[in-house]
């Protein structure tokens, strides 16, 4: 279903932070390609730079070096954009964050949120807005009553559905999921993962899926890059990366995932080996 045309490409993106005379290179010469209709996993633990990378992609941070190509054309994300540019960018990419308790305005219901968005982008109001809201609410598996609830009245999984509905309301081509299922219970996680796969198939979306959870990444993505300390240490199609890892860090990650019959001993050994070859952080 996915045509191999590259929708989004990152080229040598670099970002450093200086904090009290200490320079940290959060993202170091990172490149990746997201094909149209594809799903790219960004795998890493804390400190890997994956969240910074994604914030640069979505325009919340600016890179120091490097560039992005959107459908082959340069995609500049200026923090100070014109209103028109802001709206155009919004319809290219949206993001769903990890913790819906802070990614949703606690005083706003889904219906109110969607009304504002639909008014801003499409100048919709009244019955046409209402029907679109109904459509979006249903698409993420929420009821009308839940659309009128405040976030504090919803469960974690329901809140995350609200966040997804909000992101989908502007019909983006790319949806970035930043650890979007990490805070959810296993059973709820399964529901959201199913939903994400369904939406991708139905709406032809492309995903950038950030996660530290390898099994989840395998379930939702076609390709993946593995990040460690700001750099990409391995890349390829998800199945190969996870079944036949080349880089010692990827091997360590895999060995660290609990699975039937798993023991942490192998991971501990791999970690020693890895640390022996690296400069301490």
């Amino acid at each position: 279903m996915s045509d191999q045309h590259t929708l989004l490409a990152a080229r040598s993106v670099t970002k450093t932070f200086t904090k009290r005379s200490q320079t940290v290179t959060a993202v170091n010469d990172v490149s990746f390609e997201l094909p149209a209709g594809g799903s790219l996993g960004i795998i890493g633990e804390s400190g890997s730079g994956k969240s910074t990378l994604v914030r640069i992609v979505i325009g919340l941070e600016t890179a120091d070096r490097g560039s992005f190509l959107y459908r082959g054309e340069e995609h500049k994300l200026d923090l100070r954009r014109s209103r028109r540019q802001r709206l155009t960018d919004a319809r290219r990419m949206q993001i769903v964050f990890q913790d819906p308790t802070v990614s949703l305005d606690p005083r706003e219901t889904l219906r109110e949120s969607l009304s504002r968005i639909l008014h801003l982008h499409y100048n919709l109001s009244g019955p046409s807005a209402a029907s679109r809201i109904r459509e979006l609410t249903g698409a993420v598996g929420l009821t009308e009553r839940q659309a009128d609830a405040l976030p504090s009245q919803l469960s974690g999984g329901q809140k995350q559905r609200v966040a997804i509905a909000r992101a989908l309301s502007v019909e983006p081509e790319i949806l970035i999921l930043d650890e979007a299922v990490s805070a959810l219970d296993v059973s709820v996680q399964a529901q959201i993962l199913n939903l994400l796969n369904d939406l991708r198939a139905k709406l032809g979306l492309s995903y950038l899926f950030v996660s530290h959870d390898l099994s989840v990444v395998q379930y939702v993505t076609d390709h993946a890059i593995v990040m460690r300390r700001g750099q990409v240490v391995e890349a390829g199609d998800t199945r190969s990366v996870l079944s036949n890892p080349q880089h010692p860090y990827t091997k360590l990650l895999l060995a660290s995932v609990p699975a039937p019959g798993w023991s942490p001993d192998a991971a501990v050994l791999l970690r020693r080996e890895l640390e022996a070859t690296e400069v301490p952080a």
Partner: protein
Amino acid sequence: MTGQIPAADALLRTDTTVRLPRRDPWLFASIGWLALVVLIAIVGPWIAPYDPNTVDLRAINAPPGTAGHLLGTDQLGRDLLSRLLVGARLTLIGPLIVIVGSTLLGVIIGGVSGWIGGWVDGLLSRIIDFLFAFPGLLLAIFAVALFGPGVVTPAIALAIAFTPIGARLMRNLVMREVRKDYVSSLRVLGFSGVGIFVRHVFPNVSAPMLSQTVLGFSYAVVDLAAISYLGLGVQPPEFDWGLMISEGQQSLLAGAPWPVLWPSIMIVLVVIAFNHMGEYIIDRYQRRF
């Protein structure tokens, strides 16, 4: 189908919060009392039984209940009830100026500081730190020394002295909100910074700010009463409750506490009422989230 919060989990999340009765009888008492005082401030001069400045040397320091004087008279025979009723207006106008002024300045300075951050925040925070160094009362006295006594001069000085508290609170609240992902999400969705601030951030920080404003009113009442007491505020023949206390000292020494007692009680009750309201607002806000 979509998961529900397990009952045990929901209860566990609430069992450490302070249980405040939803219908707080003292809250209604406070609001009622303050409404009454505001009413008196507005219609006082019309309902006062006597002209508050009428001197009657035959009834000096009369105790309450003496013919025609419900609350007694002061050292010049002036009716205390009338003076209380008429004095309310000037007693409250000063604090009003203080609060409106300091809140406006505080919200603007703190809001800009917290929202923009960076060097703007750095500069404004240093200014606020500088203002913090001036105790309100001292600044007011200094202002009076420069510009003369009255109701307005000390009030403006106090407004400036009170600003740092509100500004710092506003700044911290705004910074905390700005860090939350919902602000980022709204930006990514295409909303403008101003729109996000006005429609999302500000409503989420208004409860603590409101509480601060309400509490501030009571501090202003006390500070301005002290200013009047010192003779630096409203000047005779005008008067407020603070000046009444000052003038009533002689009566106190002469064994008649009434001229000092009534205005003192009024001030204390007003302060308690404002304090209670302010605390209630903060408690409700903390419980909701």
